[in-house]
């Protein structure tokens, strides 16, 4: 390298940033640099998750990285004009990236490298603490690794919040020769994108997490079940798996340990239900994504009938930091039985949408107002849906709820995969309830009548309520229908669709043409 090293400029390759024109910005920067005879090194990083600032351009300076955003192609000449390559002022200058208040306030453990590194550079990964967790794991016994994860109190981030350590222990205890680790990358919940950001922004951390899981339970093969809506994640993961294999981190012998681990990606085909773990296993086996009866648990008899650890992307991507820093340190964060951090995803009608990794315990209000800045429309907030399409709608009066699995469940909702969608006062909650039923009908695997038929009936009944046709009788019918779905569904699609429906009815009765309630409160 020459003594006058070319300045390094970062423009995200994250698909949301690309959806806002990041590719054109990157090209404009390269072209403008060429026009000015300037040398620069362009790195395509992941996104920091501050999406209201995307496309966000960063430059490495002697005082650290500085950021500019949101940048359009039209701003590129002025960036050069004001010498952004030296980190100088500009109307869109955000100052040192790490000092951006809403980034600084986060506790980035799982997302430590996302937005920082070049996602497909193994060297970058290693330089930023990558593969230290695996190195430590390889020096431990299987039981010790599982113990470390158990000590962290990490619970599954896919939705069900089941303790990861207990699941791993179950699979470890099976004597079968063939075991699997399957990563659930189906991320179907509207309002969520944390899995995508990891896979596009730091794929090696997922690969490392899966490798640690495999070493711990004695699995030699792994699958990532990736939804088809994520083509960029597919490209990035594929490149990272190839690189990791060539470097000996995957394959016949993981880091010369004598333990094999082969990793393969399977792409879904647009079925929400395939995010449920047993439907996902069916799909990997080449079948319709129909739910299996449990027991047996996948941890005992999962993929191709063999013991299988199924974990969400975020669960697995949190493991390297836990092994590296110790389960105890991870457990220091959080509240109650919700330990560690959770990447919260704020979306919908919100001024500052994005991903914020924080310890459990923040209130929904602080997330939505302090981080999110309230609604994007500037109108009053009407409702918040927490935890995806099967989660409850809460009114503004309930936003003091803590982001904690038990607290939200106690209020009749669920935290799920950590998505929070904000709606302003133009929202008709009867229509949202109708949509919940419609979505259930569309995505039902068909196994249970209450889910398959009940959801279609639910749409009709809500339509009659909206049309004021025998309203009170139909409201009763809707409640009965929801009871039947809750009681008679094998999985959470049919079983929890009543959550958004009944919470909408409970907190927003006026939208159904019913008398309004005063001051809905927690409980």
């Amino acid at each position: 390298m020459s003594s006058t090293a070319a300045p390094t400029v970062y423009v995200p390759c994250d698909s949301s940033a690309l959806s806002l024109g990041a590719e054109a910005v990157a090209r404009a920067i390269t072209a403008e640099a060429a026009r000015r005879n300037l040398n620069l090194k362009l790195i395509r990083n992941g996104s920091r998750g501050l999406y209201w600032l995307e496309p966000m351009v960063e430059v490495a300076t002697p005082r650290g990285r500085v950021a500019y955003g949101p940048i359009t192609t039209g701003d590129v000449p002025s960036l050069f004009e004001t010498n952004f390559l030296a980190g100088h002022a500009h109307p869109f200058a955000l100052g040192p990236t790490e000092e951006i208040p809403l980034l600084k306030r986060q506790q980035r453990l799982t997302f430590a490298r996302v937005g920082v590194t070049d996602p497909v550079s193994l060297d970058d990964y290693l330089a930023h603490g990558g593969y230290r967790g695996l190195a430590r794991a390889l020096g431990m016994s299987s039981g010790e690794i599982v113990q470390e994860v158990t000590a962290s109190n990490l619970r599954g981030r896919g939705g069900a919040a089941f303790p990861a350590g207990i699941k791993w222990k179950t699979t470890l205890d099976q004597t079968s020769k063939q075991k699997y680790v399957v990563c659930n990358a189906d991320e179907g919940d509207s309002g969520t994108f944390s899995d995508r950001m990891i896979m596009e922004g730091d794929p090696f951390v997922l690969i490392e997490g899966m490798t640690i899981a495999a070493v711990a339970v004695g699995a030699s093969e792994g699958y990532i079940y990736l939804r088809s809506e994520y083509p960029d994640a597919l490209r990035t993961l594929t490149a990272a798996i190839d690189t990791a294999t060539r470097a000996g981190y995957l394959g016949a012998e993981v880091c010369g340990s004598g333990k094999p681990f082969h990793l393969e990606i399977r792409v879904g085909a647009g079925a929400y239900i395939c995010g449920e773990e047993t439907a996902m296993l069916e799909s990997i086996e080449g079948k319709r994504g129909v739910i299996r009866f449990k027991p047996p648990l996948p941890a005992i008899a999962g993929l191709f009938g063999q013991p299988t650890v199924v974990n969400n992307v975020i669960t697995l991507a949190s493991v390297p930091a836990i092994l590296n820093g110790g389960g105890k340190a991870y457990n220091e964060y959080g509240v109650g039985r919700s330990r560690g951090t959770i990447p919260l995803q704020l979306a919908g009608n919100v001024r500052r949408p994005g991903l914020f990794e924080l310890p459990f315990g923040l209130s929904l209000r602080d997330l939505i107002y302090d981080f999110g800045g309230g609604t994007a429309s500037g109108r009053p907030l009407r409702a918040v849906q927490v935890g995806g399409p099967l989660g409850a709608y809460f009114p503004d009066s309930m936003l003091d709820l803590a982001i904690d699995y038990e607290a939200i469940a106690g209020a009749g909702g669920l935290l799920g995969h950590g998505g929070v969608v904000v709606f302003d006062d133009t929202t008709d909650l009867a229509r949202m309830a109708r949509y919940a039923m419609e979505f259930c009908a569309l995505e039902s695997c068909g196994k249970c009548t209450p889910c398959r038929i009940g959801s279609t009936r639910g749409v009709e009944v809500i339509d009659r309520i909206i049309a004021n046709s025998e309203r009170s009788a139909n409201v009763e019918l809707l409640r009965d229908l929801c009871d039947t779905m809750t009681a008679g569904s094998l999985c959470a699609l049919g079983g929890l669709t009543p959550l958004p429906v009944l919470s909408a009815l409970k907190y927003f009765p006026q939208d159904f043409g019913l008398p309004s309630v005063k001051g809905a409160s927690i409980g």
Partner: protein
Amino acid sequence: MALDHLWDRAAVLAIVNALKHQPGALMPILRRIQDDLGWVPPASMPLIAEELNLSRAEVHGVVSFYHDFRHAPPGRNVVRLCRAESCQAIGAAALADHARKRLGIDFNVTSADGAFSLEAVYCLGNCACSPAAVINGELLGRVTPARFDDAIARLERR
């Protein structure tokens, strides 16, 4: 009934042969056919079934289960709009109405001249930039009716 659309038998056979020697081969095979051809020709199912030693009913059952597998070729341009909650919270319904009018077709329809197919999707993971769309594979965020029209006009000029 009109003749079934023509389909490339050799291409399907090549995909099946390339991918059949793996566990759970049917999904990767259908996925590749869908990606390469843009649809999964119903008339190809007997061939796939035979090559994989499955019944036709099994293959048909899988193809019909998944939303991604189209049963007819799509239009030259495929417009997919997200209709899930996050996008609904910030203009997806108005955008959907606008798109229907602009393209002159409803969802799950291909225009008579074969220029456009309009499809609904439920979450693209672009929720922080709602409302979202995918036009010919390119993801777009914060799609206003005006941005939508720009994108469509560019396609029509081609």
